[in-house]
């Protein structure tokens, strides 16, 4: 038997799981670029060194984002991947497709690219991997014809993304799909023409479960929430208890704020709504008995992401509650004010969270015209992250802290 040319990659085909190596080998039979991509990857595994360079000018007419230039630094050995650019395609809100659209996408990439796809990249886009510079414009034209547009890349607004929200999920407190679609259409220039110090990510989750992990990854997180009280179906709570759920231990004692109480005799759940911080634990544990309140909107948070100039950040609350109804002007105006301040003040490659960290939450809030609120904590359950301006402190001898 002939010796394999990819012994290290072959290891990734073992075991019970689907393997990208197997898929690539299948595709390599008709796509020389994929054959070379496998060869280069094997070399990388062997040398423990990446062989891709990225950047430079590649794009389509009028666009500054959506195409990531990728070149091989061993193009003499693997000429079919000397150019192997990636196209990012704006995904539909909530990642819903018809099979017809998926087929169209695959046909386009078969015709103009390597055929390799990644559904989806970490930002949320459809990732089409591997094409040459001269195919970029024809691929883009074909994508446009099929109703698709490019997503963001570089120092621009990255493709907004949202959880499936009201389409599939009973916890959605806001219409994540519509908000995502509306913001994407409103901010087309911000998405396609990179003018900022660095990238800006916008993610929308329908409830605090945050299935798009916005709080850890987005520069601005929109998280659905409620202002009134969790609704409790008392009979359904009793059914959970009768069915063997230890409500006291598994639900009440794990409420992080002590908002819940349990009357074991009557099998009754008590709730101090004002103590609830909407962590979703009790709702997730007893979905048939508990659900979000009826006065719904969103909490806005800023500054998440493992950044470059500072350390990793989770987001900070900047608006505890905003009602979100079309056309979402309040949210859009706030975004514009945030971008203006960040654009004006940030260093190159400084994300908005890093700028707030450097300049202070107080500066930021004043610049964008937001009032301070007790929910603005630097670290959860630690210390406040807002310090009053000296002139706002009435007749006192207090010295400003921090």
């Amino acid at each position, binding site marked *: 038997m002939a010796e394999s040319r990819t012994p290290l990659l072959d290891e990734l085909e073992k075991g019970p799981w689907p393997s990208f190596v197997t898929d690539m080998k299948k595709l390599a039979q008709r796509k020389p670029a994929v054959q070379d991509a496998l060869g280069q990857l094997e070399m990388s595994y062997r040398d423990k060194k990446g062989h891709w360079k990225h950047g430079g000018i590649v794009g389509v007419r009028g666009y500054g984002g959506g195409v990531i230039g990728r070149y091989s630094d061993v193009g003499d050995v693997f000429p079919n991947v000397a150019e192997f650019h990636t196209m990012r395609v704006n995904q539909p809100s909530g990642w819903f497709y018809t099979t017809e659209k998926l087929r169209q996408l695959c046909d386009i990439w078969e015709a103009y690219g390597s055929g390799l796809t990644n559904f989806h990249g970490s930002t949320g886009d459809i990732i089409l991997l591997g094409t040459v510079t001269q195919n970029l414009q024809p691929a883009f034209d074909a994508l446009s014809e099929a109703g698709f547009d490019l997503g963001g890349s570089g120092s621009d607004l990255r493709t907004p993304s949202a959880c499936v929200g009201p389409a599939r999920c009973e916890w959605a407190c806001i219409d994540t799909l519509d908000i995502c679609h509306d913001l994407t259409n409103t901010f087309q220039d911000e998405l396609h023409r990179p003018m900022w110090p660095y990238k800006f990510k916008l993610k929308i989750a329908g409830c605090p479960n945050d299935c798009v992990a916005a709080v850890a990854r987005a520069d601005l997180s929109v998280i659905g929430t409620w202002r009134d009280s969790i609704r409790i179906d008392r009979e359904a709570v009793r059914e959970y208890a009768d069915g063997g759920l230890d409500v006291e231990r598994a639900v009440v004692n794990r409420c992080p704020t002590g908002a819940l109480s349990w009357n074991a005799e009557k099998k009754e759940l008590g709730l101090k709504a004002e103590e609830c911080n909407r962590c979703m634990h009790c709702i997730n544990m007893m979905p048939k008995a508990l659900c979000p309140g009826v006065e719904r909107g969103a909490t806005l948070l800023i500054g998440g992401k493992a950044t470059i100039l500072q350390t990793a950040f989770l987001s900070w609350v900047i608006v505890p509650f905003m009602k979100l109804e079309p056309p979402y002007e309040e949210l859009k105006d706030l975004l514009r004010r945030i971008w203006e301040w960040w654009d*004006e003040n940030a260093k*190159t490659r400084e994300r908005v969270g890093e700028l707030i960290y450097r300049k202070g939450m107080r500066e930021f809030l004043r610049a964008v015209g937001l009032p301070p609120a007790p929910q603005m904590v630097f670290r959860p359950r630690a210390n406040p992250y807002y310090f009053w301006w000296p002139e706002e402190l009435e007749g006192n001898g207090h010295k400003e802290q921090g």
Partner: protein
Amino acid sequence: MAEAASEELKARVLEYLAKVDKAKSHDIAQALKEKKSLVDAAVRELAREDRVEFLYIGTSYVKLKGK
């Protein structure tokens, strides 16, 4: 819809870009002593007209098309 950029500013942006290899919009605005938002609008139009292009080296820059 954003207002149309002035032709005069677009010409000055092109003139500036002719003198440098690449620039961030922020630097163009500072060099021309113009508001960043006006320069952004001018660059956007120039991009749509295919007269400037974007370059990515760690962050995005603007440069004259084909320069």
